């Protein structure tokens, strides 16, 4: 490894192949590689303790290739704070760029750009860049400012220089950076990586460096503990409302905030466990948006996990959601786009509909935060909903012209679960209205009923097939010619006349008392119903039967009435008809035995409206009424359950800016 001396103090400097700049570990001088002796660039500031678990000199392996953590730079973000870029010197001479921010690691390698890189000025967050066969989504474009460095750096840094860059992501965890500090821009491609995948060992310690500090507020003296001092950029005293810049645990007063009513349910410092993670509440934001002149508030709790990662718990009108970031590349925009807002997005195979899109403004700040938050800070926030999950897109403009888009996934948490997780006193306030991602309780019921309904329909079908297969049996059939059986009605004696509907028959009051008895009928089963069918060719008339099925031996008698009644005509509305010439009456099963039918025909007037009628008695007849009733019992309540679920959805979407029944 080529050795040189520090131009300032003479201490040895290492310049391995590819190293462009080296920082003297003794005097912090930074020197550039030249053909001869190193050229002094200047002196770097001390590194900010970012809580990184990595350290210079660590060795590791990736995909079977060994590497050493040879150097690090710290770059300032426009929103405050710095992020680390570690440089991995591989044994084969390649260099890897390992960016570390907020608990995430992104490893990239410089590659030949597989296409033309768009100019920096044309970039738009959420937009796409086609490079080679990959469609990259722009998650951020901004400028990073060089702050500090150590070890060997594979690029030529300049003191306090700012470097335009764009971060891209693609499906499958792919990550890329466009470095616009050179012309043409450089292309670095790689992916997000887990710390374990680097198989690090050697110098340094992997233990987390988080160490809480218990400091008093410099303004009012109230306790103002810092639970993530290595990442905290801004602190607001919950007691006096003073806002401080914080760097490595040192406060510098900015201003006194006029705070809104915090309506804070989880106190700062409260510890709990959500989604299987131990979490500490370190900050609280009161945010608001204005829709149709009305201001709507909600609260956001910043939670710190044991690995230094951040999560959010959002409370709005008593509804709670646990929020975690998701990669931009997993979001696919679909549907029409109105004012830069797609009406739907795809994520993890589901379609999320846009619920609202508005400017969200920070109204109150309490506790500590990992960026330089302040009152009045605003982002453009859009929410998309699918069942009990909502996705949020937040687009934030950076000072200096950059833009950043972040996507997060909010899962609904029942209020009582939050109370239990953080051991809060009292009872959770009752949620008001319906939250965008509140689970629809009626769908669960409807789905369960759907399963039961399918089983019941199956059973109904089985019964139908069973009864159809069993068949019906004809027990009795008779043709009754009234003129033959009633001599008084012979045509010679009385002319057959068909009465007109509604016309009074003066002879109608004359009594007719024909009664016929059938031959013995054998009923073999006492468990099958009976159906008696009357067929009579009535025309604008009726004929009825008062009947009885009598068991002479036991006295069991089934009494019934059945009538054929058929009327038709036409009026101003056109032709009409009612009734029919065939009618059936169903009788309950009677005990097996021998029966006789007693038939007493009835009609209006002296003369019967028909010459003859037919009677049939059958057993084991499929009676559709009972299948219809069972079908109603099977379908009615599930339909009501679905209606209830749909009504719940309707009420939910009434709150949306994109409801189909109103709004935009």
């Amino acid at each position, binding site marked *: 490894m080529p050795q040189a001396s520090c131009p300032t103090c003479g201490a040895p400097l290492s310049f391995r192949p590819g190293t462009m700049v080296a920082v003297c570990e003794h005097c912090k001088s930074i020197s550039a590689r030249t053909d001869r002796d190193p050229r002094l660039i200047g002196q770097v500031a001390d590194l900010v303790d970012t809580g990184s678990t990595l350290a210079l000199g660590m060795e590791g392996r990736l995909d079977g290739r060994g590497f050493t953590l040879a150097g690090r730079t710290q770059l300032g973000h426009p929103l405050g704070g710095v992020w680390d870029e570690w440089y991995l010197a591989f044994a084969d001479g390649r260099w890897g760029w390992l960016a570390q921010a907020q608990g995430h690691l992104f490893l990239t390698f410089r590659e030949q750009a597989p296409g033309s890189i768009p100019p920096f000025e044309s970039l738009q967050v959420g937009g796409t860049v086609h490079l080679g066969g990959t469609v990259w989504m722009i998650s951020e474009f901004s400028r990073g400012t060089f702050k500090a460095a150590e070890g060997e750096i594979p690029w030529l840094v300049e003191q306090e220089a700012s470097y335009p860059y764009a971060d891209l992501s693609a499906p499958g965890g792919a990550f890329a950076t466009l470095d616009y500090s050179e012309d043409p821009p450089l292309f670095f491609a790689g992916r997000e990586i887990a710390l374990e995948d680097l198989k690090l060992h050697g110098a340094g310690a992997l233990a987390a460096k988080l160490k809480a500090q218990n400091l008093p507020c410099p303004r009012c003296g109230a306790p103002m503990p810092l639970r993530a001092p290595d990442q905290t950029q801004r602190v607001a005293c919950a007691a006096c409302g003073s806002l401080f810049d914080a760097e490595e645990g040192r406060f510098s007063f900015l201003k006194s905030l006029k705070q809104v009513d915090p309506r804070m349910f989880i106190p700062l410092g409260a510890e709990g466990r959500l989604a299987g993670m131990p979490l500490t509440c370190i900050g609280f934001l009161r945010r608001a948006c204005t829709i149709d002149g009305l201001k709507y508030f909600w609260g956001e709790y910043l939670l710190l996990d044991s690995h230094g990662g951040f999560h959010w718990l959002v409370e709005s009108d008593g509804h709670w959601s646990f929020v975690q970031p998701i990669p931009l590349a997993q979001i696919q925009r679909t549907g029409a786009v109105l004012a830069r807002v797609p009406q739907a997005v795809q994520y993890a195979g589901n379609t999320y509909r846009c619920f609202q899109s508005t400017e969200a403004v920070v109204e109150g700040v309490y506790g500590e935060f990992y960026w330089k938050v302040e009152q009045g800070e605003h982002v453009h926030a859009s929410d998309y909903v699918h069942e009990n999950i909502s996705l949020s897109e937040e687009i934030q403009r950076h000072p200096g012209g950059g833009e950043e888009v972040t996507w997060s996934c909010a899962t609904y948490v029942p209020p009582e679960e939050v109370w239990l997780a953080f051991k809060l006193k009292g009872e959770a306030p009752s949620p008001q209205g319906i939250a965008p991602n509140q689970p629809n309780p009626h769908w669960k019921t409807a789905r369960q009923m759907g399963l039961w309904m399918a089983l019941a329909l199956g059973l109904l079908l089985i019964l139908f097939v069973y009864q159809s297969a069993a068949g019906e049996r004809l027990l009795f059939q008779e043709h009754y010619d009234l003129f033959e059986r009633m001599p008084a009605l012979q045509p010679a004696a009385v002319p057959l006349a068909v009465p007109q509907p509604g016309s009074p028959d003066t002879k*109608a009051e004359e009594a007719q008392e024909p009664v016929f008895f059938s031959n013995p009928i054998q009923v073999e089963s006492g468990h099958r119903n009976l159906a008696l069918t009357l067929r009579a060719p009535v025309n604008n008339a009726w004929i009825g039967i008062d009947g009885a099925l009598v068991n002479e031996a036991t006295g069991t008698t*089934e*009494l*019934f009435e059945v009538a054929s009644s058929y009327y038709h005509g036409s009026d101003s509305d056109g032709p009409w008809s009612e009734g029919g010439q065939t009618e059936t009456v169903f009788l309950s099963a009677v005990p097996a035995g021998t029966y006789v039918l007693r038939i007493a025909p009835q009609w209006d007037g002296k003369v019967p409206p028909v010459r003859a009628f037919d009677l049939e008695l059958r057993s084991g007849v499929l009676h559709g009424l009972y299948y219809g009733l069972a079908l109603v019992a099977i379908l009615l309540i599930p339909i009501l359950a679905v209606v209830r679920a749909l009504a719940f959805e309707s009420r939910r979407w009434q709150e949306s800016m994109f409801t189909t029944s109103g709004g935009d």
Partner: protein
Amino acid sequence: MRILYLIALAGGFAFLGSNVFGGREYFGNRRRAEIPPSVRQTPGGWRTFMHNHGFRGGK
């Protein structure tokens, strides 16, 4: 609601089951009657009995 649904299913299938397997009918213009034994002992007596107890035939 689930309990209500179970009750509705039980009721619907009770009706249907008693019809399919027991031959029971619950609707329609029909009723059951018993002819008194004293009437039954008289050959053909039930015909007169019915004639005098509501099934006269005609108007």
